[in-house]
């Protein structure tokens, strides 16, 4: 029904069209093949992203309608295919008296950094494809209203997202998830062989559970994982929504903004029950007298805390360089801890970027970020009390813009690991281009081999994916 009313609204609005509608579609298929196949990684995977959009300007505003879809095929221990369709950016933007209003399924951008932004908080991130994804698919639109008031140079903007979503992350079963393909099944399979007072009693049921899991369709496994991720999420009454205010000013050669928001965390505090954790940690089944306690305990609890945040951003130029900066403070930022635990503590983030362009055919940007926990947590997982990162992107255009050399790199100085994504792209026509590239990961700590090692992993996020080096081929067709 939502689609129907949205379409009807657009149709009626078209009666006052000030220009013909712009209609477009972009399809981006990609196939990636692992360079170093392993049991815990898919041998190959493909992604196909589709973006269809239409927009039209009216006398006092514009409507826009978008559909996003993606198809992911993964081939490893089994072959999975996942199809997902969602509303793209859709809604209406225009004048409301002397103010401006945007309503609909929106992407609203805060922050000035691209690779390492800490301020880009209004939309959930879509990280399912890991480094195979692109910047256009990295943000997911959500229902939102944005009201803006002010002058040409000073503005105040208030946003309200009634139904916030968590980041789109696959926790289980993908090359880019914490629990890699086969880890869960492997652990449950091994449980029937664990020592412990209850081993005689539990061996047979655990073996049955393992067998049942083995027979479970990948889609059913994903459904369980998704359900677990949604546990504890507040009801969507609207009063649990995200609210934000941004005040921005622009002057000759500089623009700056400060913002404040009250947000639901994009990642939950997920905790494994203490007794379940002991089983995994010690690789030992509980005593018979502990079984009742184990049975009464929720295996996993999930909580979605709220946090205040305040931030500032700035962009300017200095000689031949563009300068961008941002800083953010969180009252209650969620940090993961080892053994499937998490806690929320006050934190800060600071980022700086410098970019350089020459002749329109060379572009390079370097970004740096420092994230700091104001109250360090015990056993941080994939993070540290202080994390320093560097990111860079570069593009060289050759042969009359027919050939592009692209590169992106991310260095985590705190963990000593880094990744790069070089790509050669041939622009055949305005509508069609194709690229050949690689995702190269350099680990300081070997990636985990099993569930226990994954949940207690002490390395960084790049190292965790360290065995996923791949080469990829992609197409981009637009019309």
């Amino acid at each position, binding site marked *: 029904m939502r689609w129907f009313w949205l379409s009807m609204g657009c149709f009626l609005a078209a009666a006052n069209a000030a220009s013909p509608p712009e209609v477009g579609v972009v399809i981006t298929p990609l196939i990636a093949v692992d360079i170093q196949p392993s049991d815990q990684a898919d041998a190959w995977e493909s992604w196909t992203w589709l973006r269809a959009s239409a927009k039209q300007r009216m006398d006092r505003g514009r409507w826009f309608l978008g559909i996003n879809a993606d198809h992911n095929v993964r081939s490893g221990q089994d072959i999975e295919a996942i199809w997902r369709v969602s509303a793209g950016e859709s809604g209406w933007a225009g004048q409301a008296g002397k103010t401006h209003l945007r309503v609909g399924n929106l992407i609203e*951008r805060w*922050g000035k950094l691209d690779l390492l932004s800490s301020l880009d908080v209004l939309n959930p991130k879509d990280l399912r494809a890991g480094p195979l994804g692109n910047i256009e698919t990295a943000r997911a639109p959500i229902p939102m209203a944005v009201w*803006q008031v002010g002058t040409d*140079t000073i503005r105040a903007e208030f946003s309200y997202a009634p139904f916030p979503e968590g980041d789109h992350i696959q926790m289980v079963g993908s090359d880019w998830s914490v629990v890699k393909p086969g880890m869960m099944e492997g652990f449950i399979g091994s449980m029937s062989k664990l020592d412990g007072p209850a081993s005689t009693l539990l061996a047979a049921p655990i073996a049955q559970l393992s067998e049942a899991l083995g027979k479970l369709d990948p889609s059913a496994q994903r459904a369980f994982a998704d359900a677990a991720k949604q546990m504890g999420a507040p009801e969507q009454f609207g009063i649990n929504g995200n609210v934000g205010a941004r005040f921005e000013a622009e002057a000759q050669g500089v623009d700056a903004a400060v913002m404040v928001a009250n947000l639901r965390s994009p990642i939950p505090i997920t905790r494994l029950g203490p007794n379940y954790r002991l089983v995994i940690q010690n690789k030992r089944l509980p005593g018979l007298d502990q079984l009742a306690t184990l049975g009464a305990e929720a295996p996993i609890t999930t909580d979605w805390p709220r946090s205040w945040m305040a931030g500032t951003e700035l962009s300017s130029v200095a000689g031949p360089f*563009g300068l961008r900066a941002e800083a953010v403070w969180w009252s209650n930022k969620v940090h993961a801890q080892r053994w499937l635990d998490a806690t929320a503590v006050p934190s800060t983030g600071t980022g700086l970027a410098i970019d350089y362009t020459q002749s*329109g055919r060379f572009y390079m940007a370097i970004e740096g970020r420092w994230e700091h926990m104001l109250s360090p947590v015990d056993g941080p997982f994939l993070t540290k009390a202080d994390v320093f990162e560097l990111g860079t992107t570069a593009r060289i255009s050759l042969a*009359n813009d027919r050939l592009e050399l692209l590169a992106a790199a991310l260095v985590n100085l705190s963990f000593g690991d880094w990744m790069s994504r070089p790509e050669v792209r041939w622009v055949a026509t305005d509508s069609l281009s194709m690229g050949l590239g690689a995702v190269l990961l350099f680990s300081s700590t070997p990636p985990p081999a099993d569930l226990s090692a994954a949940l207690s992993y002490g390395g960084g996020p790049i190292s965790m994916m360290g065995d996923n080096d791949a080469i990829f081929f992609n197409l981009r067709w637009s019309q």
Partner: protein
Amino acid sequence: MMIRLLLSVCLALTASPAQAEDNADTIIATAQKVQRIESAIQQIEMVLVSKNGARRHRSFEMKTKRIDGLNATYVRFSKPTDVAGTQLIVLERSGKSDEQILYLPALKRTNRIAGRAKKGAFMGSDFSYEDFDFSDDPKATHTLISSNDTTWVIDTKPGPESSYGRIRSTVSKSDHLPRQVEFFDAKDHAKKLLTIQQTATQNGAVLPTHSVMKNLNRGTSTELKVTEWQLNLPPDEIPNETFTIGFLERNG
């Protein structure tokens, strides 16, 4: 410079006569004066022609307005799909180099174009961002090279910040509109050639509707065709906020 005026909206009053002004500075000053308009909206088709003749098409809307005596330009691309939504504003700054801000829809943010980047190609074309610079560089000097019954030929030596070493303009005496502009690099090698192939008249003003810029080194060219235009609009038609970052972000 002539090219800058041409790309902004390039208008000349047909009523302006060829006067006895065989002085380059006077000709340029008159040309700038008669070509100046208060506001315009143009729909433009840009065709990029490669060395082997392959053609790539771009469509964009250009809005220009004089605000407090200074030029402001807004450009928004609508085709092809891959660049649709890309926007650019160019703001003339008194006594300073122009300010250029680009909005890239994929990034959902604005990017300030700094220093040498202004000399780069505009959206892959043979025009550079610098060509959209409206400033009449006070350091530029003009020399009248020749004159006949219909045209003046003027050499302009731009200021040190320009990527051009010399610009030769052939200016029509009838309307003060340049019909041909040759761009030379610092070593005085011919770099680019602009020709105006078609014009249209509206409300006593002349608008170049078909221009071609050739890159003589690369063998490429860019055609600009103005398909629709509105000139000297009421002030409210193009509000000043069109030339702000806030506008770019709202329309991304």
